[in-house]
């Protein structure tokens, strides 16, 4: 009796504590779209015009997760997985079909002004910066919309312009800017009110490698400097790899993985790559006995070897051949995730002999 009582006293406040701590909390979220289907041809079209057959597409199906304040989390998934739909529900753009969502304690789709002043949404594919005017004019409009005080506006603007290296750009007509410059301006426009929560939907799409790197650095810096909670979706694995400790993998509307990137690799790639440099040429057929040959040159060969077999195979190789160098690496996250989505969930390695 006594223990049970203590137990109850102890758990109740703890749960409340966690509820307050989570910046974003999603419980059993589902979002179905109704679409109509038509049979091919004229008769099909006429039929569908009169009597429309509709069915539900489950864009997001029973997803639950929680994100702490200040976390930088990546959403991964193929096209149509439900990433953007989830972000849109979190931003209050869409009403969910089912489930509870809380962002900073607000229900997003109620679209309270207090909530909207605390978050920002950046979409790589859509722009909010006025096309025919210099970006500075858009910034001034956003200043009015978000009621940013003059002093704070000036300070934030200077800071962001400096970090993003936009000094020469903000007074040039937006349509004359490069895609990368415009994307930086989009970020700046979205961040002038210093949002505590930031949703980035494919912010680096279409950008070159250097610019992608710039954007990444900036997102990391913003996260660190303002302690903002950031959710990032991207097709580019590098973005997520460079920025996020934690990833949520969504596939066909389901949350299939929630955890750190290293775990994805350890769990779903049960192999490693071993690159061996020999003192004298070794035939490919000989090497095939140790593992599957990924790339072969007489002196330097890369083998794919089952994770468990790595110590044993490397010892064997060192013993059998004159080895100059031996290098063991984890597979690229990129590849693991690609395999993850293409059919067979866990990527199976060939069995090393």
């Amino acid at each position, binding site marked *: 009796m006594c223990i049970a009582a203590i137990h109850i006293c102890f758990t109740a406040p703890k749960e409340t504590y966690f509820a307050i701590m989570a910046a974003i909390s999603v419980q059993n979220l589902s979002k179905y779209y109704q679409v109509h289907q038509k049979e091919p041809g004229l008769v099909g079209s006429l039929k569908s015009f009169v009597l429309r057959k509709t069915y539900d597409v489950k864009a997001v199906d029973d997803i639950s997760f929680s994100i702490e304040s200040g976390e930088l989390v990546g959403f991964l998934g193929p096209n149509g997985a439900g990433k953007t739909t989830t972000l849109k529900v979190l*931003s209050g753009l869409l009403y969910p079909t089912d489930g509870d969502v809380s962002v900073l304690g607000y229900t997003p789709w109620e679209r309270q002004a207090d909530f*909207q002043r605390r978050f920002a*949404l950046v979409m790589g594919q*859509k722009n909010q910066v006025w096309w025919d*005017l210099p970006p500075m*004019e858009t910034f001034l*409009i956003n200043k009015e919309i*978000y009621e940013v005080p003059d002093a704070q506006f000036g300070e934030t603007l200077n800071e962001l312009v400096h970090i993003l290296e936009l000094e020469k750009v903000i007074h040039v007509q937006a349509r004359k800017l490069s895609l990368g410059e415009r994307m930086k301006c989009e970020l700046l426009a979205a961040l002038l009110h210093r949002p505590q929560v930031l949703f980035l939907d494919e912010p680096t799409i279409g950008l070159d490698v250097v610019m992608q790197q710039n954007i990444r650095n900036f997102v990391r810096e913003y996260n660190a400097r303002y302690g903002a909670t950031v959710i990032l979706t991207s097709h580019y694995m590098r973005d997520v790899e460079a920025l996020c400790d934690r990833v949520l993998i969504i596939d066909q509307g389901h949350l299939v993985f929630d955890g750190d990137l290293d775990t994805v690799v350890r769990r779903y790639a049960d192999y490693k790559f071993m690159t061996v440099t020999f003192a004298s040429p070794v035939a490919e057929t000989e090497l095939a006995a140790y593992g599957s040959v990924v790339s072969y040159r007489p002196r330097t060969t890369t083998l794919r070897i089952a994770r468990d077999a790595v110590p044993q195979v490397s010892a064997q190789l060192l013993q059998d051949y004159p080895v100059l160098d031996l290098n063991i690496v984890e597979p690229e996250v990129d590849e693991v995730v690609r395999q993850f989505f293409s059919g067979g969930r866990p990527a199976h390695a060939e069995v090393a002999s």
Partner: protein
Amino acid sequence: MQRYGRLYLAFAKNSFLNALEYRLSFTVWSIATICYSVVYVASIQIIFGHVQTIGGWRVEQMLVLAATVMIVDGIVESIFGENMNALSGLINRGELDFVLSKPVNTRFYVSTRKFDWDPLVQVVIGGGVLWYAIGLLAQPVTWFGALLYLGMMVCACLIAYSLWFIIISVTFFVGRLNNVGHLYYNLIEASRVPTDVFRGALRLGLTFVLPVAFIAMVPSQALMGLLSPTFALAAVAMTAGLLVLSHLFWRLALTKYSSASS
């Protein structure tokens, strides 16, 4: 309220800068508008070279009507025109996302974001025609008539805007409506004829179902001292009714917004 005043100023300033970027556009638009107005006024003069009255309207009264259409249409197109034309695209391409995620009244934002300076030329020309026509009127215009005219003009602009807004909002339900905005221009065309010319069901329809009568005829009658108090009240009621209706329609439409794929 003050905040929206400041925001509107910022919008107007941006639109002005925008207009300055495209100097030629203003010139071309002005020439087109002048040509159109000359033809329009001349056609009225030609018709009245053959007849004394149409449906009880004399030439100077028709010119007042013509001027009123120009002014109302010019104002509505300046304030709302570009926005209404852009709105259907915002919905179709899912760019409304940005607007919806901001702490600002969505309808205010999508209705007033861009002020178009070009149609103001039409307002100036309309003013000139009005001045000329008033000089020809048999009865001088009274102060009361002028004030009532202004009031009815405000109603006319709000009615035209509400109708345009409702027409465009239909896009929410269907995802895309090609050239749906043209319905507004047809409405303006219809208002160039005094509804009194028609009889029976058509006349009632053009007054109360599609309230074309309130866009130009009612203000013109107000200026000339020919408006019955009943119609003045009907205009106010119609304005209020349409504003409320368009608001409800917009609210309903927003819940249907499915946001385009990204």
